[in-house]
């Protein structure tokens, strides 16, 4: 029975559908509640913290033994800034936790918090990305006088010659506005102190439980064994729940200090103000093209607003350095020069959000291709055809090695599926009625499933990347798979169960996947960066293959055959070519209870495997058809098509779900969502009435075509697919808007392309024409 490749309904779902899931707030009953008192200003000196009589307020002074969050990149261009769990002298962004109170119930804690007065002398903040880079800008941190916390630079030797010999040089300024990953469940934790063994268990809504435990132990100065971190059901993360946040440190500190159970469940406003933001980036690029449209050279100045601090463990390098390393994307870029800076400001700290920098760099490359095609009088599909990578392995100018993919074929399939000539006829006809239709495409690569080499190359002092899996067949013939990855909605338990079921000849429902608990799973890195199916999947395959080998050995002995003759299928071990078979359950029992009969049972039916791959590139092409209302600036997406190549599909239904969700977030990025600060650093979009994630009415039907390039860069043949939807959609939509507005000669190089921005672009195009 082959379980791989089937759209098996998820094993996770019945519990969740009945309302029996355990999200962290569901575990907070009976615990005392913490409420943080947050800075009302973006920057200022703390003069005092006043509490009414009888109210205990915890401040930096109480936490004097606790360390600072200070992630490190081992590179000379990195300035490590420390983030205190609670600040003692100055605040760096509006919403920063300055103190906390505790009460028996959440509402009572909120009442108390309102009575705490923070005496803060406001100072002029630096908020805007480019303003922070001006020579006269005030430094956010004294350690970084120019506000640059990390800087990558490179220049290949032939870049100047490429520009000198170019038939056309295309220049672009692009801007991606700040966003929030905005998981539906906010952050939260429940810390339980156990008097008996003096351990503290933190249940928290996180993506990296093991890393969180390491960070907490380091900051609190205790052995890791004193702590246990459990990620229960997690209501979405998208990168926002990867980091070690000060709130968790305070929570665990308080549980240990009071020796009682305490909870912190943040509200939506806190989540917007103080969790993490992303995508606040400005890119200035120049592309040198020859007359045939070949991209000879690419030069880029990449700026990322990383906010007030550096997120732990991935650091503030995550956006700028990813942009730096991956800008060329799916294109053959012969010569490359880039400078990429992470710029600190008095705003909420940046952390990864699904796609990390790649939505913006894809927008950049796809706008560049479109502009170059227009300048050179080439068909925009043809110019991509001439530049897309087509031989593998491909080595990028930044040293990335791309495994086999279907870059051109995916684009051709997409173009064929949308019937471009028919669209052009519809578009021309609509124009005669004063309606503006547009079609945009975006081709991109998605680097996924990368192990330690990729993170080490970034200079991270903490190098994530591998995964370990512990696979055990118990005496009842049921399988437990303990994984270091920590899924939170991806359906990984189902997909891994399918994978190992095939390896061991059992059914997926016999496989229990255990994740997210530092006491019950091997050390691992969690779930992020489109890695779990590739890396935890690879390790699961290896571990279950080792168990299968032991099973075969025992079965061979029991049935007087050779190991090579044993097939594991349908819950049985069969001797090939005979009618002899024994249920796997009986073999498992014998291996545990009659071990004296077998030789070499070392490790028994419990085996561990480790997997640390170099990484693999998925690829895709997105096509968007839109209609733009030129009077209102409103955009309607009429059609959205994805041709996706993520290698082997383990569970196609789950893969499609990842694409759907990713595209929806990409649409949000392209058209709707924006975190807006006023010049004083106050967040204007701290509620769901102001920050606008799309509803079912804004998301069109998403059509998906799969291609399956099986690459040898991954053990399972599967490539990662978690982020692609988010990466490709903004560029396709923006290109479609620009296409629709071609009669006005309008360029849109900023996301989200809100009605306001589209109207402004049309107005300025009209004014320019009249001048």
């Amino acid at each position, binding site marked *: 029975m082959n379980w791989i490749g089937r759209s098996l309904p998820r094993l996770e779902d019945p519990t969740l*559908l009945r309302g029996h899931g355990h999200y962290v*707030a569901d575990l907070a009953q009976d615990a005392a509640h913490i409420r943080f008192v947050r800075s009302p200003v973006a920057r200022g000196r703390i003069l005092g913290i006043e509490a009414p009589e009888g109210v205990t307020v915890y401040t930096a002074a109480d936490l004097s033994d606790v360390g600072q969050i200070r992630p490190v990149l081992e590179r000379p261009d990195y300035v490590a800034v420390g983030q205190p769990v609670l600040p003692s002298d100055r605040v760096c962004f509006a919403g920063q936790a300055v103190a906390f109170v505790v009460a028996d119930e959440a509402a009572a804690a909120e009442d108390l918090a309102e009575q705490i007065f923070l005496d803060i002398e406001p100072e002029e903040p630096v908020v805007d990305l480019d303003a922070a880079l001006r020579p006269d800008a005030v430094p956010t941190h004294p350690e970084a006088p120019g506000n640059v916390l990390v800087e990558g630079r490179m220049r290949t030797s032939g870049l100047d010659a490429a520009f000198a010999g170019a038939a056309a040089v295309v220049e672009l300024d692009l801007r991606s506005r700040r966003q929030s990953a905005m998981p*539906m469940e906010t952050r939260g934790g429940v810390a339980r102190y156990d008097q008996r063994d003096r351990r503290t268990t933190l249940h928290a809504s996180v993506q990296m439980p093991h890393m969180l435990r390491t960070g907490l132990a380091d900051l609190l100065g205790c052995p890791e064994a004193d702590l246990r971190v459990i990620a229960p059901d997690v209501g979405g993360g998208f990168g926002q729940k990867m980091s070690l946040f000060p709130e968790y440190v305070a929570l665990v500190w308080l549980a240990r200090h009071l020796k009682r159970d305490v909870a912190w469940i943040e509200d*939506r406003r806190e989540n917007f103000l103080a969790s993490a933001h992303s995508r606040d980036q400005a890119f200035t690029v120049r592309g040198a093209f020859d007359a045939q449209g070949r991209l000879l050279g690419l030069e880029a100045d990449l700026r990322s607003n990383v906010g007030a601090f550096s997120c732990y463990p991935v650091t503030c390098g995550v956006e700028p350095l990813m942009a730096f390393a991956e800008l060329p994307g799916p294109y053959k870029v012969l010569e490359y020069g880039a400078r990429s800076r992470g710029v600190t400001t008095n705003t909420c700290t940046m952390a990864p959000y699904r796609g990390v920098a790649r939505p913006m760099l894809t927008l950049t490359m796809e706008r560049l291709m479109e502009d170059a095609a227009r300048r050179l009088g080439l068909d925009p599909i043809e110019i991509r055809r001439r530049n897309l990578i087509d031989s593998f392995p491909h080595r990028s100018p930044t040293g990335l090695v791309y495994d086999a993919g279907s870059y051109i074929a995916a684009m051709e399939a997409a173009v064929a599926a949308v019937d471009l000539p028919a669209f052009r006829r519809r578009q021309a006809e609509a124009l005669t009625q004063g309606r503006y239709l547009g079609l945009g495409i975006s081709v991109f690569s998605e680097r996924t499933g990368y192990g330690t080499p990729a993170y080490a190359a970034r200079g991270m002092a903490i190098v994530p990347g591998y995964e370990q899996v512990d696979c055990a067949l118990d005496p009842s013939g049921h399988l437990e798979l303990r994984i270091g990855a920590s899924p939170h909605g991806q359906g990984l338990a189902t997909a891994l169960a399918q994978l190992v079921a095939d390896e061991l000849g059992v059914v997926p429902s016999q496989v229990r996947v255990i994740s997210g608990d530092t006491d019950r799973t091997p050390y691992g890195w969690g779930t992020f960066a489109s890695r779990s199916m590739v890396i935890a999947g690879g390790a699961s395959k290896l571990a279950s293959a080792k168990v299968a080998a032991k099973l075969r050995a025992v079965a061979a002995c029991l049935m007087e055959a050779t190991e090579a003759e044993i097939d594991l299928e349908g819950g049985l071990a069969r001797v090939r070519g005979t009618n002899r078979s024994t249920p796997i359950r009986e073999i498992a029992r014998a291996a545990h209870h009659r071990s004296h009969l077998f030789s070499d049972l070392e490790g028994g039916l419990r085996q561990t495997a480790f997997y640390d791959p170099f990484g693999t590139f998925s690829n895709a092409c997105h096509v968007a058809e839109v209609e733009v209302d030129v009077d209102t600036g409103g955009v309607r997406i009429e059609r959205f098509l994805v041709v996706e190549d993520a290698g082997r599909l383990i569970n196609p*239904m789950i893969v499609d779900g990842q694409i*759907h*969700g990713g595209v*929806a977030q990409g649409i949000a990025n392209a058209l709707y969502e924006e975190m807006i600060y006023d010049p004083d650093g106050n967040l204007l979009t701290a*509620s769901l009435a102001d920050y606008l994630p799309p509803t079912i009415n804004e998301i069109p*039907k998403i059509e998906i075509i799969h291609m399956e390039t099986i690459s040898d860069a991954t053990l399972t043949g599967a490539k990662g697919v978690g982020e692609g939807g988010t990466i490709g959609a903004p560029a396709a939509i923006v290109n479609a808007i620009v296409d629709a507005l071609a009669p006005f000669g309008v360029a849109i190089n900023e996301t989200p392309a809100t009605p306001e921005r589209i109207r402004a672009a049309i107005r300025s195009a009209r004014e320019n024409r009249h001048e």
Partner: protein
Amino acid sequence: MNDRLAITLNVNGQSYPVTVEPRKSLADALREDCGLTGTHLGCEHGVCGACTVIVDGRPVRSCLMFAVQAEGLAVCTVEGLAEGEALHPLQRHFWEQHGLQCGFCTPGFLMLAAGAFEADPTIDEAEMIDVLSSNLCRCTGYQNIAKAVSLALQDMRAGV
């Protein structure tokens, strides 16, 4: 606090005598006082719909209703949707169509669709999709939620 009120909530056909502050939301009372944590809170300001429950046959955002207002009314939460082992058609189709990922928004969507059908059993598919636009999901891109609800609507109409 002595300004608490003793009330009885009727949830999923069961009586829950609870003592709550007048300011306590129905959502908080369901979660904290009745122990029914299937009702989730995504925003507590009436936008996301994660907290949707059915009150007297209509979908209601339980973060915007006070617990004391629900006294004497019939409240139905996600825990009351299935009949024993048998999943409600909405639950079944959400499962089969992969209408959930992290599952945090799911109880809200289930109760919204169930409540909209209960309030108007003649509701058509387009109207139903429009109703669904009042809730937020961050994971699914709504594709499979729409599919699941359409299929469930057919089953609910047919009474299966």
